[in-house]
Protein backbone atom coordinates (compact mmCIF):
# COMPACT_ATOMS: atom_id res chain seq x y z
CA UNK A 1 0.00 0.00 0.00
CA UNK A 2 2.78 2.37 0.93
CA UNK A 3 4.22 2.05 -2.58
CA UNK A 4 1.60 4.60 -3.67
CA UNK A 5 2.07 6.94 -0.73
CA UNK A 6 3.00 9.91 -2.96
CA UNK A 7 0.01 9.30 -5.20
CA UNK A 8 -2.37 8.96 -2.27
CA UNK A 9 -1.06 12.19 -0.78
CA UNK A 10 -1.42 14.05 -4.08
CA UNK A 11 -5.05 12.89 -4.47
CA UNK A 12 -5.85 13.76 -0.87
CA UNK A 13 -4.47 17.25 -1.41
CA UNK A 14 -6.10 17.59 -4.82
CA UNK A 15 -2.77 18.23 -6.55
CA UNK A 16 -3.75 17.22 -10.08
CA UNK A 17 -0.37 17.60 -11.77
CA UNK A 18 1.49 15.63 -9.15
CA UNK A 19 -1.15 12.91 -8.99
CA UNK A 20 -1.18 12.46 -12.75
CA UNK A 21 2.63 12.30 -12.81
CA UNK A 22 2.64 9.77 -9.98
CA UNK A 23 0.04 7.67 -11.79
CA UNK A 24 2.09 7.72 -14.97
CA UNK A 25 5.18 6.82 -12.96
CA UNK A 26 3.43 3.85 -11.40
CA UNK A 27 2.21 2.68 -14.82
CA UNK A 28 5.71 3.02 -16.27
CA UNK A 29 7.16 1.09 -13.35
CA UNK A 30 4.82 -1.75 -14.29
CA UNK A 31 2.56 -1.63 -11.25
CA UNK A 32 -0.70 -3.53 -11.42
CA UNK A 33 -3.39 -1.18 -12.70
CA UNK A 34 -6.09 -2.40 -10.35
CA UNK A 35 -3.70 -1.99 -7.48
CA UNK A 36 -2.94 1.63 -8.47
CA UNK A 37 -6.69 2.28 -8.43
CA UNK A 38 -7.42 0.47 -5.16
CA UNK A 39 -4.36 1.29 -3.09
CA UNK A 40 -3.49 4.62 -4.67
CA UNK A 41 -6.70 6.39 -5.61
CA UNK A 42 -9.57 4.78 -3.75
CA UNK A 43 -7.74 4.67 -0.45
CA UNK A 44 -7.06 8.39 -0.86
CA UNK A 45 -10.72 9.10 -1.53
CA UNK A 46 -11.73 7.02 1.49
CA UNK A 47 -9.58 9.30 3.59
CA UNK A 48 -11.07 12.38 1.91
CA UNK A 49 -14.64 11.22 2.54
CA UNK A 50 -13.88 10.48 6.16
CA UNK A 51 -12.26 13.87 6.75
CA UNK A 52 -15.20 15.57 5.06
CA UNK A 53 -17.75 13.77 7.22
CA UNK A 54 -15.80 14.83 10.30
CA UNK A 55 -15.80 18.48 9.20
CA UNK A 56 -12.01 18.62 8.88
CA UNK A 57 -12.11 19.43 5.17
CA UNK A 58 -14.77 21.19 3.10
CA UNK A 59 -16.71 20.78 -0.14
CA UNK A 60 -14.23 22.50 -2.50
CA UNK A 61 -11.40 20.33 -1.18
CA UNK A 62 -13.46 17.18 -1.64
CA UNK A 63 -14.40 18.23 -5.19
CA UNK A 64 -10.77 18.93 -5.99
CA UNK A 65 -9.70 15.48 -4.82
CA UNK A 66 -12.50 13.84 -6.81
CA UNK A 67 -11.43 15.76 -9.92
CA UNK A 68 -7.82 14.70 -9.31
CA UNK A 69 -8.88 11.08 -9.16
CA UNK A 70 -10.89 11.45 -12.38
CA UNK A 71 -7.81 12.77 -14.17
CA UNK A 72 -5.74 9.83 -12.95
CA UNK A 73 -8.45 7.41 -14.03
CA UNK A 74 -8.19 8.79 -17.58
CA UNK A 75 -4.70 7.30 -17.72
CA UNK A 76 -5.69 4.03 -16.09
CA UNK A 77 -8.99 3.18 -17.72
CA UNK A 78 -7.61 2.47 -21.22
CA UNK A 79 -5.22 -0.03 -19.61
CA UNK A 80 -7.97 -2.04 -18.01
CA UNK A 81 -9.11 -4.94 -20.14
CA UNK A 82 -12.82 -5.49 -20.68
CA UNK A 83 -14.35 -7.10 -17.62
CA UNK A 84 -11.14 -6.79 -15.68
CA UNK A 85 -12.23 -3.92 -13.50
CA UNK A 86 -13.62 -5.10 -10.24
CA UNK A 87 -16.30 -2.61 -9.34
CA UNK A 88 -17.18 -2.23 -5.67
CA UNK A 89 -20.80 -2.26 -6.70
CA UNK A 90 -23.28 -0.63 -9.05
CA UNK A 91 -25.17 2.45 -7.92
CA UNK A 92 -28.18 3.99 -9.66
CA UNK A 93 -28.80 7.51 -8.45
CA UNK A 94 -31.11 10.44 -9.17
CA UNK A 95 -33.05 13.39 -7.75
CA UNK A 96 -36.71 12.40 -7.41
CA UNK A 97 -39.66 13.51 -9.50
CA UNK A 98 -40.58 17.18 -9.26
CA UNK A 99 -37.23 18.19 -7.77
CA UNK A 100 -34.54 20.01 -9.75
CA UNK A 101 -31.81 20.22 -7.09
CA UNK A 102 -28.67 18.40 -8.06
CA UNK A 103 -25.80 19.64 -5.92
CA UNK A 104 -26.08 17.09 -3.12
CA UNK A 105 -26.79 14.27 -5.52
CA UNK A 106 -23.75 15.19 -7.62
CA UNK A 107 -21.51 15.23 -4.56
CA UNK A 108 -22.73 11.76 -3.59
CA UNK A 109 -22.20 10.47 -7.17
CA UNK A 110 -18.69 11.81 -7.22
CA UNK A 111 -17.72 10.33 -3.88
CA UNK A 112 -19.30 6.98 -4.79
CA UNK A 113 -17.20 6.90 -7.95
CA UNK A 114 -14.19 7.89 -5.90
CA UNK A 115 -14.82 4.89 -3.68
CA UNK A 116 -14.79 2.55 -6.67
CA UNK A 117 -18.53 2.16 -7.25
CA UNK A 118 -19.89 2.26 -10.78
CA UNK A 119 -22.43 5.08 -10.80
CA UNK A 120 -25.30 5.62 -13.21
CA UNK A 121 -26.72 9.10 -12.66
CA UNK A 122 -30.26 9.68 -13.96
CA UNK A 123 -30.10 13.43 -13.27
CA UNK A 124 -32.96 15.44 -11.75
CA UNK A 125 -36.76 15.19 -11.79
CA UNK A 126 -36.58 11.42 -12.22
CA UNK A 127 -40.02 9.74 -12.16
CA UNK A 128 -40.43 6.37 -10.40
CA UNK A 129 -40.90 4.58 -13.74
CA UNK A 130 -37.50 5.79 -14.91
CA UNK A 131 -35.80 4.50 -11.75
CA UNK A 132 -37.51 1.14 -12.28
CA UNK A 133 -36.72 0.92 -15.98
CA UNK A 134 -33.04 1.71 -15.49
CA UNK A 135 -32.80 -0.58 -12.49
CA UNK A 136 -34.19 -3.44 -14.56
CA UNK A 137 -31.69 -2.66 -17.27
CA UNK A 138 -28.46 -2.33 -15.27
CA UNK A 139 -29.34 -4.37 -12.15
CA UNK A 140 -27.73 -2.04 -9.60
CA UNK A 141 -26.81 -3.04 -6.05
CA UNK A 142 -28.00 0.29 -4.71
CA UNK A 143 -30.69 2.75 -5.75
CA UNK A 144 -29.97 6.21 -4.33
CA UNK A 145 -32.59 8.96 -4.21
CA UNK A 146 -32.17 12.63 -3.35
CA UNK A 147 -34.82 15.24 -2.49
CA UNK A 148 -34.30 18.83 -1.36
CA UNK A 149 -37.93 19.77 -0.89
CA UNK A 150 -40.42 18.50 1.64
CA UNK A 151 -42.97 18.49 -1.19
CA UNK A 152 -40.92 16.10 -3.30
CA UNK A 153 -40.00 13.69 -0.50
CA UNK A 154 -43.19 11.65 -1.08
CA UNK A 155 -41.75 10.67 -4.48
CA UNK A 156 -39.31 8.50 -2.49
CA UNK A 157 -41.90 6.06 -1.11
CA UNK A 158 -43.62 6.19 -4.51
CA UNK A 159 -40.40 5.06 -6.15
CA UNK A 160 -39.88 2.34 -3.55
CA UNK A 161 -43.44 1.16 -4.24
CA UNK A 162 -42.75 1.18 -7.99
CA UNK A 163 -39.63 -0.95 -7.40
CA UNK A 164 -41.71 -3.35 -5.31
CA UNK A 165 -44.46 -3.65 -7.94
CA UNK A 166 -41.95 -4.48 -10.62
CA UNK A 167 -40.49 -7.18 -8.41
CA UNK A 168 -37.03 -5.71 -7.93
CA UNK A 169 -37.34 -4.12 -4.49
CA UNK A 170 -35.66 -7.11 -2.85
CA UNK A 171 -32.82 -7.14 -5.33
CA UNK A 172 -31.59 -3.64 -4.52
CA UNK A 173 -30.73 -1.60 -1.44
CA UNK A 174 -32.42 1.79 -1.31
CA UNK A 175 -30.51 4.78 0.07
CA UNK A 176 -31.97 8.25 0.52
CA UNK A 177 -30.69 11.69 1.38
CA UNK A 178 -31.26 15.45 1.04
CA UNK A 179 -31.74 18.42 3.35
CA UNK A 180 -35.29 17.65 4.62
CA UNK A 181 -34.69 13.88 4.74
CA UNK A 182 -33.99 12.19 8.07
CA UNK A 183 -33.07 8.73 9.33
CA UNK A 184 -36.55 8.55 10.81
CA UNK A 185 -38.11 9.24 7.42
CA UNK A 186 -35.95 6.50 5.88
CA UNK A 187 -37.38 4.07 8.44
CA UNK A 188 -40.94 5.22 7.86
CA UNK A 189 -40.77 4.65 4.13
CA UNK A 190 -38.75 1.45 4.55
CA UNK A 191 -35.66 2.61 2.73
CA UNK A 192 -32.58 0.58 3.66
CA UNK A 193 -30.39 3.50 4.56
CA UNK A 194 -30.07 7.24 5.06
CA UNK A 195 -26.92 9.34 4.70
CA UNK A 196 -26.60 12.96 5.84
CA UNK A 197 -23.70 13.86 3.52
CA UNK A 198 -21.57 12.59 0.64
CA UNK A 199 -18.86 11.13 2.88
CA UNK A 200 -21.32 9.13 4.96
CA UNK A 201 -23.14 8.02 1.81
CA UNK A 202 -20.05 6.10 0.81
CA UNK A 203 -19.68 4.58 4.27
CA UNK A 204 -23.37 3.60 4.28
CA UNK A 205 -23.11 2.08 0.80
CA UNK A 206 -20.19 -0.07 1.89
CA UNK A 207 -22.07 -1.14 4.98
CA UNK A 208 -25.12 -2.10 2.92
CA UNK A 209 -23.02 -4.24 0.58
CA UNK A 210 -20.88 -5.65 3.38
CA UNK A 211 -17.66 -4.35 1.87
CA UNK A 212 -16.54 -1.90 4.55
Amino acid at each position, binding site marked *: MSQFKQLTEAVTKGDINKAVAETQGAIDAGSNVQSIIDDGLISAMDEVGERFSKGIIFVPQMLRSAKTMQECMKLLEPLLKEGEVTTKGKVLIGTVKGDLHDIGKNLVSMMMEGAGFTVTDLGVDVPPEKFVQKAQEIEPDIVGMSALL*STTMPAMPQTIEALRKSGIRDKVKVMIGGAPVTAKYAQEIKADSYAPDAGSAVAEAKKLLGTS
Partner: protein
Amino acid sequence: MIIVGEKINTSRKSIGEAVERRDAAFICRVAREQAEAGAAFIDVNAGTFVDREIDCLCWLVETVQSEVDLPLSLDSPNPAAISEAIKRHKGEPMINSISLETERLHALLPVVAYQPCSVVALCMAQTSMPTTVEERVEVGAELIKKLTDQGVPLERIYVDPLIQPVSVDPGMGIAALGAINRIMSEFPGVNTVCGLSNVSFGLPLRRLINRNFLALAMSYGLSAAILDPTDKQLMATALSVEMLLGRDEYCERFIDAYQAGLIVG
Protein backbone atom coordinates in the same frame (compact mmCIF):
# COMPACT_ATOMS: atom_id res chain seq x y z
CA MET B 1 -34.01 47.20 3.31
CA ILE B 2 -37.06 44.99 3.73
CA ILE B 3 -36.42 42.23 6.24
CA VAL B 4 -38.35 38.96 6.16
CA GLY B 5 -37.86 37.19 9.50
CA GLU B 6 -36.99 33.56 8.77
CA LYS B 7 -37.08 31.95 12.21
CA ILE B 8 -40.54 30.36 12.20
CA ASN B 9 -39.58 27.39 10.09
CA THR B 10 -40.36 23.88 11.34
CA SER B 11 -37.03 22.61 10.02
CA ARG B 12 -35.59 24.36 13.10
CA LYS B 13 -35.88 21.84 15.88
CA SER B 14 -37.43 24.11 18.53
CA ILE B 15 -40.03 25.45 16.10
CA GLY B 16 -40.93 21.97 14.85
CA GLU B 17 -41.47 20.80 18.42
CA ALA B 18 -43.49 23.89 19.31
CA VAL B 19 -45.78 23.37 16.32
CA GLU B 20 -46.12 19.68 17.18
CA ARG B 21 -47.42 20.50 20.66
CA ARG B 22 -49.27 23.60 19.42
CA ASP B 23 -47.30 25.81 21.80
CA ALA B 24 -48.76 29.17 20.77
CA ALA B 25 -46.86 31.10 23.46
CA PHE B 26 -43.51 29.91 22.13
CA ILE B 27 -44.35 30.77 18.52
CA CYS B 28 -45.72 34.18 19.55
CA ARG B 29 -42.49 34.94 21.39
CA VAL B 30 -40.38 34.14 18.31
CA ALA B 31 -42.70 36.25 16.16
CA ARG B 32 -42.59 39.16 18.61
CA GLU B 33 -38.79 39.20 18.92
CA GLN B 34 -38.40 39.25 15.13
CA ALA B 35 -40.93 42.08 14.82
CA GLU B 36 -39.08 44.07 17.46
CA ALA B 37 -35.78 43.43 15.69
CA GLY B 38 -37.09 45.07 12.52
CA ALA B 39 -38.82 42.42 10.42
CA ALA B 40 -41.36 43.78 7.91
CA PHE B 41 -42.72 40.30 7.18
CA ILE B 42 -42.69 37.17 9.33
CA ASP B 43 -42.00 34.03 7.33
CA VAL B 44 -43.95 30.89 8.27
CA ASN B 45 -42.88 27.48 6.95
CA ALA B 46 -44.26 24.11 8.07
CA GLY B 47 -42.76 22.06 5.26
CA THR B 48 -41.31 19.35 7.48
CA PHE B 49 -44.81 18.22 8.46
CA VAL B 50 -45.31 16.97 4.88
CA ASP B 51 -48.87 15.58 4.88
CA ARG B 52 -49.88 17.73 7.86
CA GLU B 53 -48.25 20.84 6.39
CA ILE B 54 -51.50 22.60 5.48
CA ASP B 55 -52.97 22.33 8.99
CA CYS B 56 -49.74 23.38 10.63
CA LEU B 57 -49.21 26.32 8.30
CA CYS B 58 -52.77 27.58 8.89
CA TRP B 59 -52.26 27.29 12.64
CA LEU B 60 -49.02 29.25 12.35
CA VAL B 61 -50.72 32.02 10.37
CA GLU B 62 -53.45 32.45 12.97
CA THR B 63 -51.06 32.16 15.90
CA VAL B 64 -48.48 34.62 14.62
CA GLN B 65 -51.07 37.20 13.55
CA SER B 66 -52.70 37.01 16.97
CA GLU B 67 -49.41 38.35 18.34
CA VAL B 68 -47.94 40.74 15.79
CA ASP B 69 -49.58 43.21 13.47
CA LEU B 70 -47.45 42.30 10.46
CA PRO B 71 -48.02 40.59 7.13
CA LEU B 72 -46.62 37.08 6.85
CA SER B 73 -44.54 35.41 4.20
CA LEU B 74 -46.41 32.18 3.42
CA ASP B 75 -43.50 29.89 2.67
CA SER B 76 -44.14 26.65 0.86
CA PRO B 77 -43.41 25.08 -2.51
CA ASN B 78 -46.85 23.48 -2.16
CA PRO B 79 -49.57 25.59 -3.86
CA ALA B 80 -52.33 23.86 -1.87
CA ALA B 81 -50.75 24.92 1.42
CA ILE B 82 -50.42 28.52 0.26
CA SER B 83 -54.00 28.61 -1.04
CA GLU B 84 -55.33 27.46 2.35
CA ALA B 85 -53.02 29.63 4.45
CA ILE B 86 -53.96 32.75 2.52
CA LYS B 87 -57.59 32.32 3.60
CA ARG B 88 -56.56 32.63 7.25
CA HIS B 89 -54.27 35.59 6.65
CA LYS B 90 -55.25 39.15 7.62
CA GLY B 91 -54.00 41.88 5.29
CA GLU B 92 -51.74 41.37 2.29
CA PRO B 93 -49.42 38.39 2.62
CA MET B 94 -46.23 37.61 0.79
CA ILE B 95 -46.47 34.44 -1.30
CA ASN B 96 -43.17 32.59 -1.01
CA SER B 97 -42.82 31.46 -3.70
CA ILE B 98 -43.81 31.12 -7.33
CA SER B 99 -41.49 29.82 -10.06
CA LEU B 100 -41.67 28.74 -13.68
CA GLU B 101 -42.10 25.11 -12.63
CA THR B 102 -45.35 24.31 -14.43
CA GLU B 103 -47.48 22.91 -11.62
CA ARG B 104 -46.53 25.58 -9.14
CA LEU B 105 -47.03 28.36 -11.66
CA HIS B 106 -50.46 27.25 -12.83
CA ALA B 107 -51.72 26.62 -9.33
CA LEU B 108 -50.50 29.93 -7.90
CA LEU B 109 -51.11 32.45 -10.69
CA PRO B 110 -54.89 32.53 -10.07
CA VAL B 111 -54.26 32.86 -6.32
CA VAL B 112 -52.03 35.92 -6.67
CA ALA B 113 -54.38 37.44 -9.24
CA TYR B 114 -57.36 37.01 -6.91
CA GLN B 115 -56.15 39.12 -4.02
CA PRO B 116 -53.59 41.82 -3.28
CA CYS B 117 -50.32 40.29 -2.11
CA SER B 118 -46.58 40.42 -2.52
CA VAL B 119 -44.99 37.57 -4.43
CA VAL B 120 -41.52 36.05 -4.28
CA ALA B 121 -40.60 35.07 -7.84
CA LEU B 122 -37.97 32.37 -7.58
CA CYS B 123 -35.70 32.19 -10.63
CA MET B 124 -36.23 28.48 -11.09
CA ALA B 125 -36.87 27.44 -14.68
CA GLN B 126 -39.34 24.80 -15.73
CA THR B 127 -36.89 21.93 -15.90
CA SER B 128 -33.57 23.21 -14.59
CA MET B 129 -31.82 25.53 -12.18
CA PRO B 130 -30.28 28.56 -13.85
CA THR B 131 -26.51 28.96 -13.54
CA THR B 132 -25.54 32.10 -15.46
CA VAL B 133 -26.59 35.74 -14.98
CA GLU B 134 -28.42 35.60 -18.33
CA GLU B 135 -30.44 32.51 -17.41
CA ARG B 136 -31.47 34.06 -14.11
CA VAL B 137 -32.49 37.34 -15.72
CA GLU B 138 -34.41 35.47 -18.41
CA VAL B 139 -36.42 33.47 -15.87
CA GLY B 140 -36.90 36.55 -13.68
CA ALA B 141 -38.17 38.59 -16.64
CA GLU B 142 -40.61 35.88 -17.64
CA LEU B 143 -41.97 35.64 -14.10
CA ILE B 144 -42.29 39.43 -13.86
CA LYS B 145 -44.25 39.43 -17.11
CA LYS B 146 -46.58 36.65 -15.99
CA LEU B 147 -47.22 38.34 -12.65
CA THR B 148 -47.76 41.85 -14.00
CA ASP B 149 -50.11 40.37 -16.63
CA GLN B 150 -52.16 39.11 -13.68
CA GLY B 151 -52.24 42.62 -12.24
CA VAL B 152 -49.54 42.27 -9.59
CA PRO B 153 -47.75 45.64 -9.42
CA LEU B 154 -43.98 45.64 -9.91
CA GLU B 155 -43.43 46.97 -6.37
CA ARG B 156 -45.01 43.83 -4.93
CA ILE B 157 -42.81 41.44 -6.90
CA TYR B 158 -39.67 40.17 -5.15
CA VAL B 159 -37.38 38.39 -7.56
CA ASP B 160 -35.18 35.78 -5.88
CA PRO B 161 -32.15 35.20 -8.14
CA LEU B 162 -31.60 31.74 -6.62
CA ILE B 163 -28.45 31.64 -4.57
CA GLN B 164 -26.19 28.64 -5.06
CA PRO B 165 -23.08 27.58 -3.15
CA VAL B 166 -19.69 28.99 -4.13
CA SER B 167 -18.14 25.83 -2.68
CA VAL B 168 -19.41 23.89 -5.68
CA ASP B 169 -18.82 26.58 -8.28
CA PRO B 170 -16.86 29.71 -7.37
CA GLY B 171 -18.80 31.67 -10.02
CA MET B 172 -22.13 31.29 -8.23
CA GLY B 173 -21.75 34.33 -5.99
CA ILE B 174 -21.03 36.76 -8.80
CA ALA B 175 -23.73 35.14 -10.97
CA ALA B 176 -26.37 35.95 -8.34
CA LEU B 177 -24.98 39.45 -7.77
CA GLY B 178 -24.95 40.17 -11.51
CA ALA B 179 -28.54 38.98 -11.78
CA ILE B 180 -29.63 41.25 -8.91
CA ASN B 181 -27.96 44.18 -10.60
CA ARG B 182 -29.56 43.59 -13.99
CA ILE B 183 -33.04 42.84 -12.65
CA MET B 184 -33.03 45.98 -10.53
CA SER B 185 -31.90 48.18 -13.42
CA GLU B 186 -34.05 46.59 -16.14
CA PHE B 187 -37.25 46.61 -14.07
CA PRO B 188 -37.24 49.85 -12.06
CA GLY B 189 -39.51 49.49 -9.04
CA VAL B 190 -39.25 45.73 -8.69
CA ASN B 191 -37.71 44.23 -5.55
CA THR B 192 -35.06 41.57 -5.27
CA VAL B 193 -34.84 39.21 -2.31
CA CYS B 194 -32.76 36.26 -1.29
CA GLY B 195 -31.88 33.92 1.52
CA LEU B 196 -28.27 34.07 2.62
CA SER B 197 -27.29 30.62 3.80
CA ASN B 198 -27.13 28.72 0.47
CA VAL B 199 -24.12 30.70 -0.66
CA SER B 200 -21.95 29.35 2.16
CA PHE B 201 -22.95 25.66 1.97
CA GLY B 202 -19.96 23.35 2.34
CA LEU B 203 -17.65 25.98 3.83
CA PRO B 204 -16.39 26.94 7.29
CA LEU B 205 -17.29 30.26 8.96
CA ARG B 206 -20.64 30.32 7.22
CA ARG B 207 -22.11 33.22 9.18
CA LEU B 208 -19.22 35.46 8.21
CA ILE B 209 -19.63 34.51 4.55
CA ASN B 210 -23.38 35.16 4.77
CA ARG B 211 -22.85 38.62 6.25
CA ASN B 212 -20.36 39.60 3.59
CA PHE B 213 -22.62 38.26 0.88
CA LEU B 214 -25.48 40.37 2.24
CA ALA B 215 -23.30 43.50 2.08
CA LEU B 216 -22.26 42.73 -1.49
CA ALA B 217 -25.80 41.90 -2.60
CA MET B 218 -27.06 45.17 -1.13
CA SER B 219 -24.43 47.10 -3.03
CA TYR B 220 -25.63 45.39 -6.21
CA GLY B 221 -29.17 46.54 -5.44
CA LEU B 222 -30.76 43.83 -3.27
CA SER B 223 -33.80 45.44 -1.62
CA ALA B 224 -35.03 42.66 0.68
CA ALA B 225 -33.58 39.67 2.49
CA ILE B 226 -34.90 36.59 4.25
CA LEU B 227 -32.80 36.33 7.39
CA ASP B 228 -32.77 36.06 11.17
CA PRO B 229 -33.32 39.65 12.36
CA THR B 230 -32.40 38.67 15.91
CA ASP B 231 -28.86 37.91 14.72
CA LYS B 232 -27.29 41.15 15.96
CA GLN B 233 -24.15 40.88 13.87
CA LEU B 234 -26.10 40.23 10.70
CA MET B 235 -28.47 43.11 11.37
CA ALA B 236 -25.49 45.35 12.08
CA THR B 237 -24.20 44.48 8.60
CA ALA B 238 -27.58 45.24 7.00
CA LEU B 239 -28.05 48.56 8.79
CA SER B 240 -24.49 49.79 8.39
CA VAL B 241 -24.47 48.96 4.67
CA GLU B 242 -27.79 50.80 4.20
CA MET B 243 -26.19 53.76 5.90
CA LEU B 244 -23.04 53.55 3.81
CA LEU B 245 -25.13 53.41 0.63
CA GLY B 246 -26.70 56.71 1.62
CA ARG B 247 -30.15 55.40 2.50
CA ASP B 248 -30.24 56.31 6.17
CA GLU B 249 -30.73 60.03 6.75
CA TYR B 250 -28.85 61.31 9.79
CA CYS B 251 -27.74 57.68 10.22
CA GLU B 252 -30.90 57.46 12.28
CA ARG B 253 -31.87 53.81 11.89
CA PHE B 254 -28.33 52.64 12.49
CA ILE B 255 -27.94 54.70 15.65
CA ASP B 256 -31.44 53.85 16.90
CA ALA B 257 -30.72 50.14 16.49
CA TYR B 258 -27.41 50.55 18.31
CA GLN B 259 -29.02 52.46 21.17
CA ALA B 260 -31.79 49.87 21.42
CA GLY B 261 -29.17 47.13 21.70
CA LEU B 262 -30.33 45.45 18.48
CA ILE B 263 -26.94 45.41 16.76
CA VAL B 264 -23.38 44.58 17.75
CA GLY B 265 -20.06 44.94 15.94
